């Protein structure tokens, strides 16, 4: 699953990281839409050639390459099966285009997820008029994932020490073996939730209708520039798609 790394936030100080998350969201969506507009090798290659410098600007090219390496098995599968089973006139050409489109789509979204810290994401949601409670629930879920993971490991160790053989037997016994892990995990989590609620309550959670925020996100000139350029490019690309026939360069297989 190493190809998912490209969707995981990494702390870096780069120009892309400093952009406003809302601008990055728009940029990612525009890039994804453009990737979806084409199914020819040549324009998709251009898109990827635009995306790679962006990844470099985000200081994450290495990570991206590693993810793509992890993805390569899946890509080979897509290539083989599509080439063999597709009914298109040039199946190899079509499969390569599909692969390029997948890479372009993943990279477009990874620009967003790789560079937006979770707390900025929730702040962006709040400023996009999502209710505070929902945005906060999301950021809290992210906060407690590692804690829950740790707890799950502790419970697994405890149960192993008591003689539960977690990795033995056929699929049915293995599924049954999950029960002694899940049940305590749920109980512990409910208790933890109560204790967290108590602490949040003591600090006035939900007390004021007009909750303030220490730091609000604000659009800088560069954020506006990113938005405007994205939209202009999108319009131009849609115009090209609709009105200008693309040259018929394709691999004749």
């Amino acid at each position, binding site marked *: 699953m190493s190809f998912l790394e490209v969707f995981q936030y990494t702390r870096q100080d780069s120009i892309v990281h400093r952009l406003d998350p809302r601008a990055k969201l728009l940029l990612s969506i525009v890039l994804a839409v453009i990737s979806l507009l084409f199914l020819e090798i040549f324009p998709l290659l251009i898109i990827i050639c635009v995306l790679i410098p962006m990844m470099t600007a985000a200081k994450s090219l290495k990570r991206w390459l590693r993810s793509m390496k992890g993805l390569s098995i899946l890509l080979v599968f897509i290539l083989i099966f599509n080439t063999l089973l597709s009914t298109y006139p040039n199946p190899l050409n079509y499969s390569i285009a599909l692969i390029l489109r997948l890479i372009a789509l993943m990279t477009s979204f990874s620009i967003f997820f790789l560079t937006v810290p979770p707390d900025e994401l929730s702040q962006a949601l709040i400023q996009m008029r999502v209710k505070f409670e929902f945005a906060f629930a999301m950021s*809290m879920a*992210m906060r407690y994932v590692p804690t829950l993971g740790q707890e799950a490991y502790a419970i697994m160790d405890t149960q192993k020490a008591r003689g539960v053989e977690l990795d033995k037997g056929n699929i049915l016994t293995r599924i049954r073996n999950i029960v002694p892990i899940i049940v305590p995990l749920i109980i512990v989590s409910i208790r933890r939730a109560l204790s*967290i609620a108590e602490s949040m*309550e*003591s600090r*006035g959670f939900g*007390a004021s209708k007009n909750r*303030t925020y220490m*730091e609000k996100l604000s659009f800088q000139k560069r954020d506006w520039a990113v938005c405007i350029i994205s939209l202009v490019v999108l319009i131009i690309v849609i115009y090209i798609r609709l009105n200008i026939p693309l040259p018929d360069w394709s691999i004749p297989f």
Partner: protein
Amino acid sequence: MPLVELNDFSFKYYGAESLALKKIDLTIEEGEYVVITGPSGCGKTTLCRTINALVPQFHRGYISGNVIIDGKNTREHTVAELSSIAGLVFQEPENQLVTLNVEKEIAFGPENLGVEPSEIRRRVEEIIQLLDIEHLREKHPHEMSGGEQQRVAMAATLALKPKILVADEPTSNLDPQSAEVILDIISSLNKRDMTVILVEHRLDLVSKDASRIVLMDKGRIVADGPPREILAQDICQEIGIGVPKATLVYKRLKEQHGIDLGSIPLTGDELAGLVKEASS
């Protein structure tokens, strides 16, 4: 007017068999450093919860009597209204950190109450200075040790500018060194005119700073007074609380060997001083 006033207060949690607190009468004045101690299940935690109205507003149950905190009856005021009067620090640090970095954590309370952003920023900086947690500023809760987490939890509570700091066994999950750091912070806050109510088992660490010890057992207050008086009483050993070793030595010398050292020591240093005085 006392800051904390419990009048004949009893409480039973819904579904519980017996009363958690039985007819508690307690007044605490401004500037006091009160240590509450007693065996597990004696009602210490419930007592802490009454002070910021978690009991009866968050934990429902049967109540009688009244709790008046800084002139406000907890039956009529919400936890949020009392959050800037009494700040609670809990046992489990992990469960008190709900945001993704330390700055956000400290800002969380004031943000909830709708404090001006510039004022929140000022408080955050002040508290980071006060508790010396500059190096933790950008950290995720998961990247910190238990002691650091507890320090941040305390910072987050202090950001509400409470008059009373209530700490419910803040050191029970910490190693001795981090525990001492936390207790030092608490006693220095008390010297800055903060009223402190602390639940603690390690009496050898806190009794020298405390102005008063409240001893609880089975939902009742069984003894209440200055540390030296309380810790010398036999009831402490009967209930089974951790009386400082120095005090125990003093008692044994007096009762079994007939040697009276004159005054009751709380720490090893004090005991050494007294013995030196007596032998010279």
